[in-house]
């Protein structure tokens, strides 16, 4: 079974139909997705900015990370589960957009960036914990994280805006 066929099979299930037709479930899921986004990316950017030496320079980097990371993870979980539900509601429409496919490629990169941070950068935090900024690897992780999330959010809006069949001719890509 090809991926397109699988996506279409999901699209034709009763659950998928319920989600896209519901007056309550659909907008509520959208709202929950945005709340999760606000909490996760809203905390991630402060860690990124701290690594880059832009905010809270007098607070130890490890403290910023340890205090905000649980919120970033919790928010991400909410965002991911609600995002999955949104996709299940209109899989054919979303899968037809390039923006959605690109977003699905960038999300693992954001995860990989976090992995690089925790495996390669953060273990040495004691050496630069009280510094103005992290060394270049840490600053790079922060810049990559912020850039990825900005692009992912724009692609998310793009997906929702142009997913409907009659709007396909308006897509920029």
């Amino acid at each position, binding site marked *: 079974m090809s991926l397109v066929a699988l996506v279409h099979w999901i699209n034709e299930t009763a659950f998928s139909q319920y989600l*896209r037709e519901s007056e309550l479930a659909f*907008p509520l899921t959208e709202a929950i997705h945005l709340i999760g986004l606000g909490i996760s990316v809203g905390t991630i950017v402060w860690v990124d900015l701290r690594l880059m030496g832009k905010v809270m320079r007098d607070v130890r980097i490890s403290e910023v990370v340890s205090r905000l990371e649980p919120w970033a993870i919790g928010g991400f979980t909410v965002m991911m589960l609600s995002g999955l539900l949104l996709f299940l509601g209109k899989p054919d429409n979303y899968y037809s957009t390039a923006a959605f496919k690109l977003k699905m490629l960038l999300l693992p990169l954001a995860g990989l960036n976090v992995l690089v941070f925790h495996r390669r950068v953060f273990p040495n935090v004691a050496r630069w914990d009280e510094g103005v900024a992290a060394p270049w690897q840490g600053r790079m992780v922060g*810049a990559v994280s912020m850039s990825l999330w900005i692009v992912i*959010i*724009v692609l998310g809006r*793009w997906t929702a*805006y142009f997913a409907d*069949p*009659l709007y396909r001719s*308006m897509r920029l890509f």
Partner: protein
Amino acid sequence: MKTPRALIAAVVAIAAVPVSAHHAVQAVFDVNKPVTVSGSITKVEWINPHSYISLDSKDEHGKVQHWVFELAGPGALRQAGLSREDRGGLKPGDMVKVEGIAAKDGTTTGFLNKLYFPDGRVFVLANKDPYAR
């Protein structure tokens, strides 16, 4: 610095996307291109944030044209008296007449404003957007 520039670019990009809850009807459909189509329904979709009705219509030469009309979402349709449970009583094969505005790109697609049932019922589903003409 790389980030502030990326931030500015993102803000500009977001500002460039029309900030309606969903799409702007006027972006795709031409308010000055009214269209009336009578035909047999092929598909009814009650979808957020916009629903769709597809129909096959015969033109003056008897050639079948396939039209797809976008219309209000499930909430607005319910308020207009068309329920989601039975799709307002619409089903494939039903003959209906619809009035709306045609797509700018010249395809047989449009935005539905008025729906005529064969039994005489008429549903006005015009956009209540104060900026819509």
